């Protein structure tokens, strides 16, 4: 129906090419053409006064760019993150000035912590009004400075294409991250000659470090002589697409691999050298054996405090090789004996050439012993309970089995997140999408939306807590309007479960403001015309998950789970990893 508007513009473009003249267009159209030149196909956004000229230009680009109208700007950022993580492309979000811009803050901070490439475009009041407290003016550049990889305010239309080119280059290169471009209204409506040149170089920014071959040789020597080498696989492995190189190293020298939360899915869970999840609620063996190894090969990870526990005792007995693209992460938390400042793929490719085949049978056996202990004490009763209320873990196990570990798993933040991360058996890279560094409750519904848009051929299952769901449930409106086929599973314990667990263990069971009186989630979904079901009996669980997966399009499954279930193992915050508790 908009064809009429689009066609003349196309004809105009053709004419421009023939005459070799630069077209004179508005800043808003220059922005749209720049985005198309960057290969943008999907934008998540919300219009408002200061970004209206851009939305007006967008109207003419509907055949090239799919705009998803979200219900809150925070949803746009998380959707853009989910999109970026499932597609490997840069996620794009639009918001207006003032409250639209401030609503982006949580998502920007989340993307910054979790190295997610994202470009946010905000409208801004006219340049003449900047600094005057004009209607819906906010200093979004100042606000987002510490939570973006880069940001810029553009006040002249002719600067828009170069700012966008630079924004995309910065967002996706090196250690990826979010970028914000704030465009004043006058620049959106003013006219300029349009010419687009991709950015490939910024003289003060070196996203591809020069590989230090001496460091690689030193690292290889450490690996070749190690008795108990141990690989920590982080998000950087997935970002660099180094899954095969990592496995090559592991297999060649028979080195066990443990994963950080964001490194999950880089190594298939059923791989014989996969040792499990590190961190506060990770697996028993991989945590305990951080105290036994004699060499750590940390790849694309940053020793978050949820991984290290007490840093003064963490891997103290071992040498540390740190492969990391962000120089600021090297020696930030844990001193590296050998640091390789490079992306995971480049470093591992060089390293693998120098690695001698080796066996570490006794060492690998120690993982089996630890696994057995965890399985007997924790996993068996969690995964296969026969009596009592439904356990979170058995629900996740069934979802994992029925999706064959091939779904994109999007999790929110809390107990359900830890349980899902522990028990989903990931098969393929980039199928784990969660808010790791920030721990943003409310992440999963919008992120799942974005993930599905980024990988429509894949099943996307969001596992959500009852508290989390209520932080961003308005995005059900987006899911309905844009017909996004995400499966949403609420693990409902009528509690803010993780906080309650801490209150139980560390605050004398003083359950301060953690119990929730919840609404009827299935009715809420129904209000958005999304089918759903609630199960609370074990015998109905399997068929309910089948029904969810068999239903085309979006679906909401509420599973009522054990009210006071706890996540174990657990390393108490700030304690040595060796103090991990199994009960």
């Amino acid at each position: 129906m908009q064809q009429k508007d689009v066609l003349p513009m196309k004809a105009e473009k053709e004419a421009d090419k023939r005459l070799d003249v630069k077209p004179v267009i508005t800043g808003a159209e220059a922005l749209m053409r720049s985005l198309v030149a960057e290969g943008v196909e999907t934008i998540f956004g919300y219009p408002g006064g200061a970004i209206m000229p851009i939305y007006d230009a967008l109207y003419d680009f509907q055949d090239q760019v799919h705009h998803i109208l979200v219900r809150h700007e925070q949803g746009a950022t998380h959707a853009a993150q989910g999109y970026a993580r499932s597609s490997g492309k840069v996620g794009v979000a639009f918001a207006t000035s003032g409250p639209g811009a401030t609503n982006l803050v949580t998502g920007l901070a989340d993307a910054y912590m979790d190295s997610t490439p994202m470009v946010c475009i905000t409208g801004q009041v006219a340049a003449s009004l900047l600094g005057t407290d004009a209607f819906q003016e906010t200093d979004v550049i100042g606000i987002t400075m510490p939570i973006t990889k880069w940001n810029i305010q553009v006040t002249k239309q002719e600067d828009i294409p170069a700012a966008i080119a630079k924004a995309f280059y910065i967002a996706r290169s090196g250690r990826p991250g979010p970028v914000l471009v704030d465009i004043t209204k006058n620049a959106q409506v003013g006219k300029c000659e349009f010419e687009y040149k991709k950015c490939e170089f910024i003289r003060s920014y070196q996203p591809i470090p020069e590989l230090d071959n001496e460091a690689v040789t030193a690292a290889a020597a450490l690996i070749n002589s190690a008795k108990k080498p141990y690989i920590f696989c982080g998000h950087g492995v997935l970002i660099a697409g180094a899954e095969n190189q990592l496995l090559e190293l592991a297999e060649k020298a028979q080195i066990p691999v443990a994963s950080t939360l964001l490194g999950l899915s880089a190594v298939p869970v059923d791989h014989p050298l996969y040792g499990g999840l590190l961190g506060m609620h990770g697996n028993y063996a991989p945590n305990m054996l951080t105290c036994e190894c004699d060499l750590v090969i940390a790849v694309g990870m940053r020793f978050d405090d949820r991984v290290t526990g007490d840093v003064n005792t963490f891997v103290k007995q071992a040498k540390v090789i740190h492969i990391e693209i962000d120089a600021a992460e090297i020696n930030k938390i844990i001193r590296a004996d050998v640091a390789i400042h490079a992306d995971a793929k480049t470093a591992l490719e060089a390293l693998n050439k120098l690695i001698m085949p080796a066996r570490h049978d006794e060492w690998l056996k120690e993982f089996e012993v630890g696994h057995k202990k965890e399985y007997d004490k924790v996993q068996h009763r969690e995964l296969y309970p026969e009596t009592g209320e439904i356990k979170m873990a058995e629900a996740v196990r069934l979802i994992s089995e029925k999706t064959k570990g091939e779904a994109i798993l999007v999790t929110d933040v809390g107990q359900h997140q830890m349980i899902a991360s522990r028990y989903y058996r990931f098969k393929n890279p980039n199928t784990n999408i969660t808010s790791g560094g920030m721990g943003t409750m409310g992440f999963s519904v919008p992120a799942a939306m974005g993930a599905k848009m980024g990988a429509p051929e894949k099943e996307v299952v969001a596992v959500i807590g009852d508290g989390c769901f209520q932080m961003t449930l308005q995005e059900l409106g987006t899911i309905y309007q844009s017909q996004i086929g995400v499966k949403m599973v609420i693990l409902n314990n009528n509690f803010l479960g993780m906080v309650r667990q801490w209150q139980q263990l560390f605050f004398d069971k003083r359950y301060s403001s953690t119990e929730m009186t919840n609404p009827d989630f299935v009715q809420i979904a129904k209000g958005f015309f999304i089918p759903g079901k609630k199960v609370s009996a074990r015998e109905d669980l399997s068929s309910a998950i089948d029904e969810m997966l068999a239903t085309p399009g979006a679906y909401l499954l509420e599973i009522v789970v054990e009210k006071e279930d706890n996540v174990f193992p657990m390393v108490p915050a700030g304690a040595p990893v060796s103090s991990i508790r199994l009960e």
Partner: protein
Amino acid sequence: MQKEYTVTVYTEDRIGITNRITIIFTRRGINITSLTTAETEIPGVYKFVITVMSTRELLDKVVGQIERLIEIHRAFVHEEDEVVYQELALYKISTKALHTAGDVEKLIRENNARILTITGDYFVIEKTGHQQELVDFIKKLEPYGLIEYTKSGRVAIVKWSRRFHEHLKELDKSVASY
């Protein structure tokens, strides 16, 4: 151990760059005791000289996080003996006191100070040196009726900076992108 360090940062000429640098100190609760910035011999490249009380260990991490910023070329932490530095102070003295209190000429000579201007009411003395010398000079001027004192931040030349400045000159050949 906490002591005074000089941090130098080489940046592109961009709005907000000071803010980007200072918030990294703020996050770690480090107080900036002085900050001086100006364009270097390379057009478009600015140098910040920042003094802070902190520890080497912390500052090495701060400098890493500053270097991570897109528009920063390099950042360094320097110990006291790695830099040659100066600060500049101005002292405003009552002209009346000049007539009544002792030998100003001697005072100025001995302290390597100089007079910038004289009016009927006041005159202004300039002195360069290190922080303590400049503060000590206040005491010496007190008998003359010090009206006002003001001091600049630090300017510093790094003893081993040659290679880095050659790198900067190379940069000069590549155009600053938008």
